[in-house]
Protein backbone atom coordinates (compact mmCIF):
# COMPACT_ATOMS: atom_id res chain seq x y z
CA UNK A 1 0.00 0.00 0.00
CA UNK A 2 1.40 3.41 -0.95
CA UNK A 3 1.79 6.23 1.55
CA UNK A 4 -0.88 8.33 -0.13
CA UNK A 5 -3.33 5.46 0.14
CA UNK A 6 -2.47 5.06 3.82
CA UNK A 7 -3.00 8.78 4.26
CA UNK A 8 -6.41 8.69 2.60
CA UNK A 9 -7.43 5.76 4.76
CA UNK A 10 -6.30 7.68 7.82
CA UNK A 11 -8.58 10.54 6.76
CA UNK A 12 -11.54 8.28 6.20
CA UNK A 13 -11.16 6.05 9.24
CA UNK A 14 -9.76 8.40 11.85
CA UNK A 15 -10.25 12.11 11.18
CA UNK A 16 -13.72 11.89 9.66
CA UNK A 17 -15.40 9.95 12.48
CA UNK A 18 -13.92 12.30 15.10
CA UNK A 19 -15.12 15.38 13.24
CA UNK A 20 -18.52 13.79 12.71
CA UNK A 21 -18.83 13.05 16.40
CA UNK A 22 -17.88 16.61 17.34
CA UNK A 23 -20.35 18.06 14.85
CA UNK A 24 -23.16 15.81 16.08
CA UNK A 25 -22.51 16.60 19.72
CA UNK A 26 -25.65 18.01 21.32
CA UNK A 27 -24.17 21.26 22.65
CA UNK A 28 -22.18 21.98 19.51
CA UNK A 29 -25.36 21.54 17.47
CA UNK A 30 -27.39 23.75 19.79
CA UNK A 31 -24.79 26.53 19.52
CA UNK A 32 -24.78 26.21 15.75
CA UNK A 33 -28.56 26.29 15.51
CA UNK A 34 -28.73 29.18 17.97
CA UNK A 35 -26.47 31.21 15.69
CA UNK A 36 -28.60 30.26 12.70
CA UNK A 37 -31.70 31.53 14.51
CA UNK A 38 -30.05 34.90 15.14
CA UNK A 39 -28.58 35.16 11.65
CA UNK A 40 -31.39 37.09 9.87
CA UNK A 41 -31.27 39.94 12.41
CA UNK A 42 -27.52 40.14 12.11
CA UNK A 43 -27.48 40.07 8.31
CA UNK A 44 -30.11 42.80 8.01
CA UNK A 45 -28.56 44.82 10.83
CA UNK A 46 -25.09 44.79 9.37
CA UNK A 47 -26.47 45.52 5.90
CA UNK A 48 -27.74 48.83 7.31
CA UNK A 49 -24.22 49.78 8.41
CA UNK A 50 -23.33 50.88 4.89
CA UNK A 51 -25.85 53.71 5.08
CA UNK A 52 -24.02 55.16 8.08
CA UNK A 53 -20.59 54.54 6.56
CA UNK A 54 -20.81 55.20 2.79
CA UNK A 55 -18.16 53.51 0.68
CA UNK A 56 -16.51 56.76 -0.41
CA UNK A 57 -13.46 58.59 0.83
CA UNK A 58 -13.95 62.04 2.35
CA UNK A 59 -12.31 63.81 -0.63
CA UNK A 60 -14.68 62.33 -3.21
CA UNK A 61 -15.66 64.57 -6.15
CA UNK A 62 -19.03 62.89 -6.76
CA UNK A 63 -21.92 65.13 -5.80
CA UNK A 64 -24.11 62.21 -4.76
CA UNK A 65 -21.32 60.73 -2.64
CA UNK A 66 -20.69 64.06 -0.93
CA UNK A 67 -24.40 64.38 -0.15
CA UNK A 68 -24.53 60.83 1.23
CA UNK A 69 -21.44 61.41 3.39
CA UNK A 70 -22.95 64.60 4.80
CA UNK A 71 -26.31 62.98 5.59
CA UNK A 72 -24.60 59.96 7.10
CA UNK A 73 -22.56 62.15 9.41
CA UNK A 74 -25.44 64.38 10.43
CA UNK A 75 -27.87 61.56 11.21
CA UNK A 76 -25.42 58.89 12.27
CA UNK A 77 -27.22 58.20 15.56
CA UNK A 78 -30.61 57.70 13.90
CA UNK A 79 -29.20 55.63 11.05
CA UNK A 80 -27.34 53.34 13.44
CA UNK A 81 -30.25 52.59 15.78
CA UNK A 82 -31.63 49.62 13.79
CA UNK A 83 -28.09 48.24 13.57
CA UNK A 84 -27.52 48.76 17.29
CA UNK A 85 -30.72 46.96 18.20
CA UNK A 86 -30.09 43.94 15.92
CA UNK A 87 -26.45 43.14 15.25
CA UNK A 88 -25.30 45.45 18.04
CA UNK A 89 -26.95 43.34 20.74
CA UNK A 90 -26.65 40.01 18.93
CA UNK A 91 -25.56 38.11 22.05
CA UNK A 92 -29.10 38.50 23.47
CA UNK A 93 -30.66 36.74 20.49
CA UNK A 94 -27.91 34.15 20.48
CA UNK A 95 -28.37 33.28 24.16
CA UNK A 96 -32.11 32.79 23.63
CA UNK A 97 -31.52 30.84 20.42
CA UNK A 98 -29.00 28.45 21.95
CA UNK A 99 -31.12 27.86 25.06
CA UNK A 100 -34.13 27.15 22.83
CA UNK A 101 -32.34 24.62 20.66
CA UNK A 102 -30.59 22.86 23.51
CA UNK A 103 -33.85 22.63 25.47
CA UNK A 104 -35.54 21.20 22.41
CA UNK A 105 -32.85 18.57 22.00
CA UNK A 106 -33.54 17.47 25.58
CA UNK A 107 -37.28 17.55 24.84
CA UNK A 108 -37.79 20.24 27.49
CA UNK A 109 -40.19 23.19 27.23
CA UNK A 110 -38.13 25.20 24.74
CA UNK A 111 -39.80 28.59 24.76
CA UNK A 112 -39.87 29.35 28.51
CA UNK A 113 -36.32 28.03 28.80
CA UNK A 114 -35.15 30.26 25.99
CA UNK A 115 -36.57 33.27 27.85
CA UNK A 116 -34.88 32.03 30.98
CA UNK A 117 -31.59 31.86 29.07
CA UNK A 118 -32.08 35.45 27.95
CA UNK A 119 -32.81 36.56 31.51
CA UNK A 120 -29.73 34.78 32.81
CA UNK A 121 -27.62 36.46 30.14
CA UNK A 122 -29.00 39.95 30.77
CA UNK A 123 -28.62 39.48 34.52
CA UNK A 124 -24.86 39.18 34.26
CA UNK A 125 -24.13 41.03 31.02
CA UNK A 126 -26.20 44.18 31.41
CA UNK A 127 -27.02 45.02 35.05
CA UNK A 128 -29.28 48.10 35.09
CA UNK A 129 -27.48 51.32 35.89
CA UNK A 130 -29.12 54.77 36.16
CA UNK A 131 -32.25 53.47 34.48
CA UNK A 132 -30.38 52.04 31.47
CA UNK A 133 -29.09 48.66 30.35
CA UNK A 134 -25.45 49.03 29.38
CA UNK A 135 -25.04 47.49 25.93
CA UNK A 136 -21.28 47.06 25.81
CA UNK A 137 -21.41 43.33 26.60
CA UNK A 138 -24.45 42.53 24.48
CA UNK A 139 -22.62 42.52 21.13
CA UNK A 140 -19.61 40.54 19.95
CA UNK A 141 -17.84 40.68 23.30
CA UNK A 142 -20.79 38.91 24.93
CA UNK A 143 -20.88 35.93 22.58
CA UNK A 144 -18.89 33.47 24.65
CA UNK A 145 -20.85 34.49 27.73
CA UNK A 146 -24.11 33.97 25.85
CA UNK A 147 -23.01 30.45 24.87
CA UNK A 148 -21.89 29.51 28.38
CA UNK A 149 -24.91 31.03 30.14
CA UNK A 150 -27.41 29.45 27.74
CA UNK A 151 -25.88 26.01 28.22
CA UNK A 152 -25.71 26.53 31.99
CA UNK A 153 -29.39 27.51 32.08
CA UNK A 154 -30.61 24.48 30.17
CA UNK A 155 -28.41 22.03 32.06
CA UNK A 156 -29.65 23.51 35.32
CA UNK A 157 -33.30 23.10 34.33
CA UNK A 158 -32.56 19.55 33.29
CA UNK A 159 -30.79 18.78 36.56
CA UNK A 160 -33.64 20.20 38.65
CA UNK A 161 -36.08 18.16 36.64
CA UNK A 162 -34.00 15.00 36.99
CA UNK A 163 -34.02 15.39 40.78
CA UNK A 164 -37.68 16.33 40.76
CA UNK A 165 -37.05 19.71 42.34
CA UNK A 166 -39.87 22.10 41.56
CA UNK A 167 -43.35 23.20 42.42
CA UNK A 168 -45.90 20.51 41.70
CA UNK A 169 -49.42 21.59 40.89
CA UNK A 170 -52.34 19.15 40.74
CA UNK A 171 -53.38 17.74 37.37
CA UNK A 172 -56.57 19.83 37.33
CA UNK A 173 -54.55 23.04 36.90
CA UNK A 174 -54.46 24.04 33.23
CA UNK A 175 -51.28 23.01 31.44
CA UNK A 176 -50.19 26.57 30.57
CA UNK A 177 -50.28 27.58 34.21
CA UNK A 178 -48.44 24.46 35.29
CA UNK A 179 -45.71 25.23 32.75
CA UNK A 180 -45.26 28.75 34.02
CA UNK A 181 -44.91 27.41 37.57
CA UNK A 182 -42.31 24.95 36.28
CA UNK A 183 -39.99 27.86 35.62
CA UNK A 184 -40.21 29.45 39.09
CA UNK A 185 -37.56 27.37 40.79
CA UNK A 186 -35.11 27.37 37.84
CA UNK A 187 -35.40 31.18 37.56
CA UNK A 188 -34.72 31.54 41.26
CA UNK A 189 -31.78 29.12 41.21
CA UNK A 190 -30.24 30.92 38.25
CA UNK A 191 -30.43 34.24 40.01
CA UNK A 192 -29.03 32.74 43.20
CA UNK A 193 -26.07 31.18 41.39
CA UNK A 194 -25.10 33.57 38.61
CA UNK A 195 -25.79 36.84 40.34
CA UNK A 196 -23.57 36.27 43.41
CA UNK A 197 -20.84 34.99 41.07
CA UNK A 198 -21.12 38.19 39.06
CA UNK A 199 -20.99 40.32 42.24
CA UNK A 200 -17.98 38.40 43.48
CA UNK A 201 -16.04 38.86 40.24
CA UNK A 202 -17.05 42.49 40.13
CA UNK A 203 -15.77 42.97 43.68
CA UNK A 204 -12.55 41.00 43.21
CA UNK A 205 -11.49 42.02 39.73
CA UNK A 206 -13.49 45.14 39.04
CA UNK A 207 -15.17 43.63 35.98
CA UNK A 208 -18.39 41.88 35.06
CA UNK A 209 -18.52 38.17 34.35
CA UNK A 210 -18.70 38.69 30.55
CA UNK A 211 -15.56 40.81 30.68
CA UNK A 212 -13.80 38.10 32.69
CA UNK A 213 -14.95 35.41 30.24
CA UNK A 214 -13.78 37.53 27.31
CA UNK A 215 -10.40 37.98 29.03
CA UNK A 216 -10.08 34.20 29.29
CA UNK A 217 -10.99 33.68 25.63
CA UNK A 218 -8.87 36.57 24.41
CA UNK A 219 -5.74 34.54 23.57
CA UNK A 220 -7.87 32.07 21.61
CA UNK A 221 -9.64 34.87 19.74
CA UNK A 222 -6.31 36.51 18.90
CA UNK A 223 -4.89 33.19 17.77
CA UNK A 224 -7.90 32.58 15.53
CA UNK A 225 -7.10 35.75 13.60
CA UNK A 226 -3.65 34.66 12.41
CA UNK A 227 -2.63 33.13 9.10
CA UNK A 228 -1.59 29.75 10.59
CA UNK A 229 -5.01 29.39 12.23
CA UNK A 230 -6.78 30.32 9.00
CA UNK A 231 -4.72 27.80 7.05
CA UNK A 232 -5.30 25.09 9.64
CA UNK A 233 -9.08 25.62 9.53
CA UNK A 234 -8.99 25.61 5.73
CA UNK A 235 -6.93 22.42 5.65
CA UNK A 236 -9.23 20.60 8.07
CA UNK A 237 -12.37 21.68 6.21
CA UNK A 238 -11.05 20.43 2.89
CA UNK A 239 -9.69 17.17 4.22
CA UNK A 240 -13.18 16.45 5.55
CA UNK A 241 -14.78 17.35 2.22
CA UNK A 242 -12.27 15.12 0.51
CA UNK A 243 -13.60 12.28 2.65
CA UNK A 244 -17.07 13.22 1.40
CA UNK A 245 -18.49 14.96 4.45
CA UNK A 246 -19.49 18.56 4.85
CA UNK A 247 -16.28 20.09 6.19
CA UNK A 248 -17.57 23.64 5.91
CA UNK A 249 -20.59 22.94 8.13
CA UNK A 250 -18.37 21.30 10.74
CA UNK A 251 -15.42 23.71 10.77
CA UNK A 252 -17.66 26.74 10.22
CA UNK A 253 -19.79 25.76 13.20
CA UNK A 254 -16.75 25.87 15.45
CA UNK A 255 -15.44 29.11 13.93
CA UNK A 256 -18.76 30.97 14.10
CA UNK A 257 -18.31 32.46 17.62
CA UNK A 258 -14.85 33.69 16.64
CA UNK A 259 -16.17 35.22 13.43
CA UNK A 260 -18.82 37.10 15.35
CA UNK A 261 -16.49 38.35 18.08
CA UNK A 262 -14.08 39.59 15.42
CA UNK A 263 -16.90 41.12 13.36
CA UNK A 264 -18.32 42.87 16.43
CA UNK A 265 -14.88 44.32 17.17
CA UNK A 266 -14.48 45.56 13.58
CA UNK A 267 -17.91 47.18 13.61
CA UNK A 268 -17.24 48.85 16.95
CA UNK A 269 -13.93 50.17 15.62
CA UNK A 270 -15.65 51.44 12.48
CA UNK A 271 -18.27 53.28 14.52
CA UNK A 272 -15.57 54.78 16.74
CA UNK A 273 -13.44 55.80 13.75
CA UNK A 274 -10.55 53.51 14.74
CA UNK A 275 -8.60 51.21 12.39
CA UNK A 276 -10.29 47.81 11.98
CA UNK A 277 -8.51 45.12 14.01
CA UNK A 278 -9.58 41.76 12.49
CA UNK A 279 -9.15 39.85 9.23
CA UNK A 280 -10.68 36.40 9.75
CA UNK A 281 -14.45 36.78 9.55
CA UNK A 282 -17.04 34.73 7.73
CA UNK A 283 -17.09 36.82 4.54
CA UNK A 284 -13.31 36.27 4.26
CA UNK A 285 -13.92 32.53 4.42
CA UNK A 286 -16.94 32.41 2.09
CA UNK A 287 -15.71 34.62 -0.71
CA UNK A 288 -11.90 34.40 -0.69
CA UNK A 289 -11.20 30.88 0.57
CA UNK A 290 -14.21 28.86 -0.61
CA UNK A 291 -15.27 30.97 -3.57
CA UNK A 292 -17.61 28.97 -5.73
CA UNK A 293 -17.89 26.41 -2.93
CA UNK A 294 -15.36 24.43 -0.90
CA UNK A 295 -12.15 23.80 -2.83
CA UNK A 296 -12.44 27.17 -4.57
CA UNK A 297 -13.77 25.20 -7.53
CA UNK A 298 -15.16 28.08 -9.57
CA UNK A 299 -12.10 28.02 -11.83
CA UNK A 300 -12.39 24.25 -12.13
CA UNK A 301 -16.01 24.45 -13.30
CA UNK A 302 -14.91 26.74 -16.10
CA UNK A 303 -12.36 24.11 -17.15
CA UNK A 304 -15.01 21.37 -16.98
CA UNK A 305 -17.36 23.26 -19.27
CA UNK A 306 -14.85 23.08 -22.10
CA UNK A 307 -13.53 19.60 -21.29
CA UNK A 308 -13.10 16.93 -23.96
CA UNK A 309 -14.53 14.39 -21.51
CA UNK A 310 -18.29 14.07 -21.88
CA UNK A 311 -18.59 13.26 -18.19
CA UNK A 312 -16.74 16.37 -17.00
CA UNK A 313 -18.64 18.52 -19.48
CA UNK A 314 -21.93 17.36 -18.08
CA UNK A 315 -20.71 17.93 -14.50
CA UNK A 316 -19.65 21.42 -15.56
CA UNK A 317 -23.05 22.08 -17.10
CA UNK A 318 -24.82 20.92 -13.94
CA UNK A 319 -22.42 22.72 -11.66
CA UNK A 320 -21.93 26.17 -13.14
CA UNK A 321 -25.09 27.91 -11.95
CA UNK A 322 -25.00 26.64 -8.35
CA UNK A 323 -21.24 27.41 -8.30
CA UNK A 324 -22.03 31.08 -8.86
CA UNK A 325 -23.81 30.92 -5.50
CA UNK A 326 -20.99 28.97 -3.82
CA UNK A 327 -22.79 25.63 -3.94
CA UNK A 328 -20.68 22.91 -5.48
CA UNK A 329 -21.95 19.49 -4.45
CA UNK A 330 -22.38 18.56 -8.14
CA UNK A 331 -18.66 19.22 -8.64
CA UNK A 332 -17.51 17.49 -5.46
CA UNK A 333 -19.66 14.38 -5.84
CA UNK A 334 -20.16 14.41 -9.59
CA UNK A 335 -16.52 14.68 -10.69
CA UNK A 336 -15.99 13.04 -8.16
CA UNK A 337 -13.40 14.91 -6.13
CA UNK A 338 -14.22 12.85 -3.05
CA UNK A 339 -11.42 10.29 -2.55
CA UNK A 340 -10.01 11.11 -5.97
CA UNK A 341 -6.24 11.12 -5.49
CA UNK A 342 -5.63 13.15 -8.66
CA UNK A 343 -7.67 16.08 -7.39
CA UNK A 344 -6.54 16.03 -3.76
CA UNK A 345 -3.68 18.52 -4.10
CA UNK A 346 -5.50 21.35 -5.91
CA UNK A 347 -8.69 20.82 -3.91
CA UNK A 348 -6.87 21.30 -0.61
CA UNK A 349 -4.20 23.80 -1.65
CA UNK A 350 -6.07 26.20 -3.95
CA UNK A 351 -8.19 27.47 -1.01
CA UNK A 352 -5.10 27.72 1.19
CA UNK A 353 -3.28 29.74 -1.44
CA UNK A 354 -6.34 31.96 -1.78
CA UNK A 355 -6.37 32.48 1.98
CA UNK A 356 -2.70 33.41 2.05
CA UNK A 357 -2.97 35.89 -0.80
CA UNK A 358 -6.12 37.50 0.59
CA UNK A 359 -4.57 37.70 4.05
CA UNK A 360 -1.53 39.58 2.80
CA UNK A 361 -3.62 41.75 0.48
CA UNK A 362 -5.62 42.85 3.51
CA UNK A 363 -2.54 43.36 5.67
CA UNK A 364 -1.00 45.47 2.91
CA UNK A 365 -4.14 47.58 2.79
CA UNK A 366 -4.86 46.67 -0.84
CA UNK A 367 -8.37 45.42 -0.03
CA UNK A 368 -10.79 46.11 2.81
CA UNK A 369 -11.45 44.21 6.02
CA UNK A 370 -14.85 42.65 6.69
CA UNK A 371 -17.46 44.81 8.43
CA UNK A 372 -20.72 43.09 7.51
CA UNK A 373 -22.36 39.71 7.79
CA UNK A 374 -23.26 38.50 4.30
CA UNK A 375 -25.22 35.37 3.30
CA UNK A 376 -22.62 32.86 2.10
CA UNK A 377 -24.67 32.22 -1.05
CA UNK A 378 -23.95 35.69 -2.47
CA UNK A 379 -21.91 35.41 -5.70
CA UNK A 380 -18.28 35.61 -4.54
CA UNK A 381 -17.14 38.91 -6.11
CA UNK A 382 -20.31 40.66 -4.95
CA UNK A 383 -20.22 39.05 -1.51
CA UNK A 384 -16.59 40.04 -0.98
CA UNK A 385 -17.29 43.67 -1.85
CA UNK A 386 -20.49 43.70 0.21
CA UNK A 387 -18.75 42.21 3.26
CA UNK A 388 -16.19 44.98 3.29
CA UNK A 389 -18.82 47.72 2.98
CA UNK A 390 -18.87 47.73 -0.84
CA UNK A 391 -15.15 48.00 -1.44
CA UNK A 392 -14.67 47.25 -5.14
CA UNK A 393 -11.07 46.11 -4.60
CA UNK A 394 -12.34 43.06 -2.71
CA UNK A 395 -14.47 42.04 -5.69
CA UNK A 396 -11.55 42.47 -8.06
CA UNK A 397 -9.33 40.34 -5.83
CA UNK A 398 -11.94 37.56 -6.05
CA UNK A 399 -11.85 37.69 -9.85
CA UNK A 400 -8.05 37.42 -9.79
CA UNK A 401 -8.25 34.48 -7.37
CA UNK A 402 -10.70 32.69 -9.67
CA UNK A 403 -8.20 33.00 -12.52
CA UNK A 404 -5.37 31.82 -10.26
CA UNK A 405 -7.40 28.83 -9.03
CA UNK A 406 -8.12 27.90 -12.63
CA UNK A 407 -4.37 27.77 -13.28
CA UNK A 408 -3.75 25.75 -10.10
CA UNK A 409 -6.38 23.21 -11.12
CA UNK A 410 -5.33 23.09 -14.78
CA UNK A 411 -2.52 20.44 -14.69
CA UNK A 412 -4.51 18.15 -12.39
CA UNK A 413 -7.61 18.62 -14.48
CA UNK A 414 -5.62 17.60 -17.54
CA UNK A 415 -4.45 14.38 -15.88
CA UNK A 416 -7.93 13.51 -14.68
CA UNK A 417 -9.47 14.36 -18.03
CA UNK A 418 -7.03 12.01 -19.72
CA UNK A 419 -7.94 9.18 -17.34
CA UNK A 420 -11.62 9.73 -18.06
CA UNK A 421 -11.14 9.97 -21.82
CA UNK A 422 -9.38 6.61 -21.82
CA UNK A 423 -12.20 5.15 -19.78
CA UNK A 424 -14.87 6.71 -21.97
CA UNK A 425 -13.18 5.27 -25.07
CA UNK A 426 -13.14 1.82 -23.49
CA UNK A 427 -16.79 2.07 -22.53
CA UNK A 428 -17.74 3.08 -26.01
CA UNK A 429 -16.23 -0.18 -27.23
CA UNK A 430 -18.04 -2.24 -24.60
CA UNK A 431 -21.49 -0.87 -23.95
CA UNK A 432 -23.15 2.49 -24.33
CA UNK A 433 -24.19 2.23 -20.66
CA UNK A 434 -23.11 5.11 -18.40
CA UNK A 435 -22.47 5.00 -14.71
CA UNK A 436 -19.10 3.32 -14.25
CA UNK A 437 -17.26 6.53 -15.04
CA UNK A 438 -16.96 7.47 -11.42
CA UNK A 439 -14.49 5.08 -9.94
CA UNK A 440 -11.16 6.27 -11.25
CA UNK A 441 -7.91 6.92 -9.41
Amino acid at each position, binding site marked *: MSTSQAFFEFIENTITPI*AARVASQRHV*MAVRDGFIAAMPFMIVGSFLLVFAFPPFSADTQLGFAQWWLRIAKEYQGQILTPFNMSMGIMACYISAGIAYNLAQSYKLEAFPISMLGLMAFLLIAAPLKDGMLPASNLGGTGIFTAIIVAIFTVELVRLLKAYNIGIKLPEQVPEKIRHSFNMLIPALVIILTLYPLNLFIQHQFGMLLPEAIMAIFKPLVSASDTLPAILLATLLCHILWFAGIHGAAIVGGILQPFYLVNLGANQAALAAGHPLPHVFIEAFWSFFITLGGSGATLGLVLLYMRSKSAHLRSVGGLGIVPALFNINEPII*FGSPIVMNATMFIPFVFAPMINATIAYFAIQAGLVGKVIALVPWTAPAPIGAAWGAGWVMGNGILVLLLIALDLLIYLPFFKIYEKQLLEQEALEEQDTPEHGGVAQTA
Partner: protein
Amino acid sequence: MVKIFLCCAAGMSTSMVVSKMRQAAAQQGVEAEITAVSMEDFDRTLPDYDCCLLGPQIKYKLDEFKTKGAALNKPVSVINSMDYGMMRGDKILKEALALLAH
Protein backbone atom coordinates in the same frame (compact mmCIF):
# COMPACT_ATOMS: atom_id res chain seq x y z
CA MET B 1 -49.14 9.39 -2.87
CA VAL B 2 -45.65 9.05 -1.43
CA LYS B 3 -43.99 11.75 0.64
CA ILE B 4 -40.22 11.93 0.51
CA PHE B 5 -37.88 14.50 2.01
CA LEU B 6 -34.22 15.10 1.38
CA CYS B 7 -31.90 16.52 3.96
CA CYS B 8 -28.46 18.13 3.76
CA ALA B 9 -26.42 20.72 5.66
CA ALA B 10 -28.34 23.78 4.51
CA GLY B 11 -30.95 22.21 2.22
CA MET B 12 -29.46 24.07 -0.76
CA SER B 13 -27.91 21.41 -2.93
CA THR B 14 -30.62 18.87 -2.10
CA SER B 15 -33.22 21.32 -3.34
CA MET B 16 -31.65 21.03 -6.79
CA VAL B 17 -31.90 17.25 -6.58
CA VAL B 18 -35.52 17.61 -5.48
CA SER B 19 -36.51 19.51 -8.61
CA LYS B 20 -34.95 16.77 -10.73
CA MET B 21 -36.83 14.12 -8.75
CA ARG B 22 -40.11 15.97 -9.21
CA GLN B 23 -39.53 16.03 -12.96
CA ALA B 24 -38.83 12.30 -12.92
CA ALA B 25 -41.94 11.63 -10.84
CA ALA B 26 -44.09 13.67 -13.22
CA GLN B 27 -42.68 11.79 -16.23
CA GLN B 28 -43.28 8.41 -14.64
CA GLY B 29 -46.71 9.35 -13.38
CA VAL B 30 -45.68 8.73 -9.77
CA GLU B 31 -47.71 10.78 -7.35
CA ALA B 32 -45.12 12.12 -4.96
CA GLU B 33 -44.55 15.03 -2.66
CA ILE B 34 -40.83 15.73 -2.45
CA THR B 35 -39.07 18.45 -0.50
CA ALA B 36 -35.64 19.46 0.83
CA VAL B 37 -34.77 20.66 4.31
CA SER B 38 -31.63 21.53 6.27
CA MET B 39 -30.43 19.11 8.91
CA GLU B 40 -31.71 21.18 11.84
CA ASP B 41 -35.23 20.76 10.41
CA PHE B 42 -35.02 16.97 10.29
CA ASP B 43 -36.91 16.38 13.55
CA ARG B 44 -39.68 18.78 12.58
CA THR B 45 -40.11 17.31 9.09
CA LEU B 46 -39.88 13.60 9.80
CA PRO B 47 -43.41 13.03 11.18
CA ASP B 48 -45.05 14.45 8.03
CA TYR B 49 -43.15 12.33 5.51
CA ASP B 50 -42.80 8.65 4.64
CA CYS B 51 -39.04 8.45 4.24
CA CYS B 52 -35.88 10.54 4.25
CA LEU B 53 -32.84 10.54 1.99
CA LEU B 54 -29.66 12.24 3.21
CA GLY B 55 -27.16 14.06 1.03
CA PRO B 56 -23.87 12.12 1.09
CA GLN B 57 -22.09 15.08 2.70
CA ILE B 58 -23.99 14.51 5.93
CA LYS B 59 -23.72 10.71 5.93
CA TYR B 60 -22.19 11.12 9.40
CA LYS B 61 -25.73 11.87 10.63
CA LEU B 62 -27.11 8.57 9.32
CA ASP B 63 -26.95 6.58 12.56
CA GLU B 64 -28.62 9.33 14.57
CA PHE B 65 -31.33 9.99 11.97
CA LYS B 66 -31.92 6.31 11.32
CA THR B 67 -32.66 5.74 15.01
CA LYS B 68 -35.09 8.65 15.01
CA GLY B 69 -36.69 7.35 11.82
CA ALA B 70 -36.98 3.81 13.16
CA ALA B 71 -38.94 5.12 16.16
CA LEU B 72 -41.61 6.36 13.73
CA ASN B 73 -41.16 3.41 11.39
CA LYS B 74 -39.76 5.65 8.64
CA PRO B 75 -36.76 4.52 6.60
CA VAL B 76 -33.74 6.80 6.30
CA SER B 77 -30.85 6.27 3.90
CA VAL B 78 -27.99 8.09 2.20
CA ILE B 79 -28.10 8.96 -1.50
CA ASN B 80 -25.39 7.39 -3.65
CA SER B 81 -22.81 10.14 -4.02
CA MET B 82 -22.43 9.77 -7.78
CA ASP B 83 -26.19 9.94 -8.35
CA TYR B 84 -26.23 12.95 -6.06
CA GLY B 85 -23.42 14.74 -7.86
CA MET B 86 -24.92 14.08 -11.26
CA MET B 87 -28.38 15.01 -9.97
CA ARG B 88 -29.91 11.80 -11.31
CA GLY B 89 -33.45 12.47 -10.16
CA ASP B 90 -34.88 9.31 -11.72
CA LYS B 91 -32.40 6.98 -10.01
CA ILE B 92 -32.77 8.69 -6.64
CA LEU B 93 -36.56 8.53 -6.93
CA LYS B 94 -36.33 4.83 -7.73
CA GLU B 95 -34.12 4.36 -4.69
CA ALA B 96 -36.66 6.17 -2.51
CA LEU B 97 -39.55 4.08 -3.84
CA ALA B 98 -37.55 0.90 -3.24
CA LEU B 99 -36.85 2.08 0.28
CA LEU B 100 -40.58 2.52 0.88
CA ALA B 101 -41.44 -0.85 -0.68
CA HIS B 102 -39.52 -2.70 2.04
